[in-house]
């Protein structure tokens, strides 16, 4: 009890030095929480962006599609009967918000003077409006079921063909039976998926119109949107089981399996975060070691006295480590509190970030303060403080008693 009180009094003894040490710990904790919170918000934004613009949470295909579908997509379509059955099964799950079919194929879009290869997506406009909330309309109007020949053109494609809303275009494609056909379409609007490469050669049209062009009643995939991303694995497992029980030859892919670009970005930023952690660690560690060594020097005679009256080396070490623990605890708690306030302030300020590479939309800075991030970095601050005190504490404990007592 008295030994703990002595440690606390020693912390208060030199207010300026303790304040500097606390600042160093807070700097470390705040930097890491803000950066971690910013990265977490970025990851979430990217993840939900790809889920709600292209991927959904889960995609259902005819078995073999992912292995052979790129060569013979017409052979791996889900037929109308299975589509109806699967849609009913999936919609019964409470975690599912909606399920919608898509028919994907490549074609050639021409305005009469120029032709460009495009990736076409036949969709159910009403359901897709809910699923693709991250797809932004940049010109014209949205697609509705009654727009039988309407098409939404990718923003980049819209510009490169120098289109205007209402422009008449012709879409040519190889049909499911291998012949070649064409349909007139009207550009009713331009859309941005958030990914520039996609926007440069992407278009959406009514599923029924796309099926007529392709001479099929089937679809390429069913896209499932869940009410929360965290249910993905659970629903994947449930659907696999249900499909097996029902004898449906289908295969599943989660957003996690499909979002390669997202994983590459996360890996890159995790690497950057690790390097920043090391730099912050070094700065904080050196700052604390420096102030603790000064404290040891100032209290040399006191250390000699403690050793002379029976204090062991461990006792002296324990005293300095206790002081660092107290400083680390106070610094970490204050660091966490200030981080939450700063994160809220920065998020509320809605400062816009420049458009990231490969993206076509800018976004506001948001900083998440999840409990996991807070306690881990708070603990990090505490541990750094304690680790930083080990060298000065060992130095103090190894002092020659007679020399320490003579120190003035």
């Amino acid at each position, binding site marked *: 009890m*008295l*030994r703990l009180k*002595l440690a606390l*009094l*020693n912390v208060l003894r030199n207010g300026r030095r303790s304040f500097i040490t606390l600042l160093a710990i807070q700097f470390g904790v705040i930097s890491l929480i803000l950066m971690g919170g910013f990265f977490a918000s970025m990851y979430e934004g990217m993840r939900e962006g790809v889920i709600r613009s292209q991927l959904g949470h889960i995609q259902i295909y005819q078995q073999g599609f992912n292995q052979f579908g790129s060569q013979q997509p017409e052979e791996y379509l889900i037929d109308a009967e299975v589509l109806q059955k699967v849609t009913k099964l999936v919609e019964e799950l409470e975690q599912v918000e909606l399920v919608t079919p898509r028919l994907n194929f490549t074609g050639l879009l021409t305005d009469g003077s120029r032709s460009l290869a495009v990736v076409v997506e036949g969709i159910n406009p009403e359901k897709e409006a809910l699923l693709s909330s991250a797809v932004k309309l940049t010109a014209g109007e949205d697609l509705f079921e009654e727009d039988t020949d309407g098409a939404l053109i990718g923003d980049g494609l819209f510009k490169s063909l120098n289109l205007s809303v209402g422009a008449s275009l012709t879409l040519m494609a190889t049909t499911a039976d291998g012949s070649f056909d064409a349909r007139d379409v009207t550009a009713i609007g331009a859309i941005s998926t958030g990914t520039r490469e996609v926007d440069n050669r992407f278009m959406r049209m009514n599923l029924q119109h796309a099926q007529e062009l392709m001479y099929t009643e089937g679809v390429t995939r069913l896209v499932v949107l869940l009410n929360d991303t965290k249910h993905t694995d659970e629903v994947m497992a449930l659907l696999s089981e249900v499909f097996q029980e029902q004898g449906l030859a289908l295969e599943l892919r989660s957003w996690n399996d499909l979002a390669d670009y997202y994983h590459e970005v996360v890996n890159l930023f995790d690497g950057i975060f690790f390097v920043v952690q090391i730099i912050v660690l070094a700065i904080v560690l050196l700052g604390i070691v420096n102030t603790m060594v000064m404290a040891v020097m100032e209290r040399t005679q006191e250390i000699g006295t*403690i050793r002379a*009256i029976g204090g062991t*080396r461990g*006792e002296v070490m324990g005293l300095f480590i206790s002081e660092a623990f107290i400083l680390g605890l106070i610094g970490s708690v204050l660091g966490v509190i200030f981080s939450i306030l700063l994160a809220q302030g920065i998020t509320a300020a809605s400062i816009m970030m420049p458009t990231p590479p490969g993206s076509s939309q800018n976004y506001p800075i948001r900083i998440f303060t999840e409990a996991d991030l807070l306690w881990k970095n708070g603990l990090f601050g505490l541990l750094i403080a304690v680790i930083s005190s080990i060298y000065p504490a060992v130095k103090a404990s190894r002092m020659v008693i*007679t020399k320490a007592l003579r120190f003035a």
Partner: protein
Amino acid sequence: MAVVKLKGVSRYFPVGNKPITALDKVDLTLERGEFVVLRGASGSGKSTLLNLIGAMDDPNEGEVFIHGKALSSLSDKQKSQLRSHYIGFIFQSFNLIPVLTALENVQYPLSLQRIANNEAKDRAAQALAQVGLADFIHRRPNQLSGGQMQRVAIARALVTKPDIILADEPTANLDSETSKQIMDLLGSLNRETGVTFLFATHHDFVLSRASRILELKDGHIVKDEQLQNLNLVDQIASGEKVG
């Protein structure tokens, strides 16, 4: 059994390329209850002798025994425990911990012995009362006079009930009147508790209170005089109750 025994103890310190002899083959025995004054000029080896007896330094030759235990056989931790239980220290500049009150300073050695907080507080308060500071227990060192600080240091040395108290120039930083009061206090504590005292001092007035005078010169004990003016040692030897 002797409280302290030195057999052929030598201590050298390297100064440049040459070793300087601080103590040279010193033999010494201190018995329980002795009030020993250690005299000598600066550099005669007084502090070195106190440091060796206090288990804070190791001799180059010979052996120091405390309560029959050879210090060379003890680890650093065991020496700390020995200092904690058997030896008390009084320093020239008091060496109190400035952030602690008088009571806490005296309590601190007991807390190092892991004695329960309440018991340690009671014993510390008793020790402070014994040195006449019952009304000053909650004062910090900077709120006390030099004499009061030295009394706190004496209480801190006494509180663990050691067998020997080592004091290196305990009155050097005090005025003559306060020095005499402190020496009177130490003399009465010696008689009351039977603890052995070993002082290094320059002050001649201390001699009248000593039961034994040791004089050091160039690392040798050149004078070892037993005085008859205090009969405490004889009382202990004859089994009479002390204090």
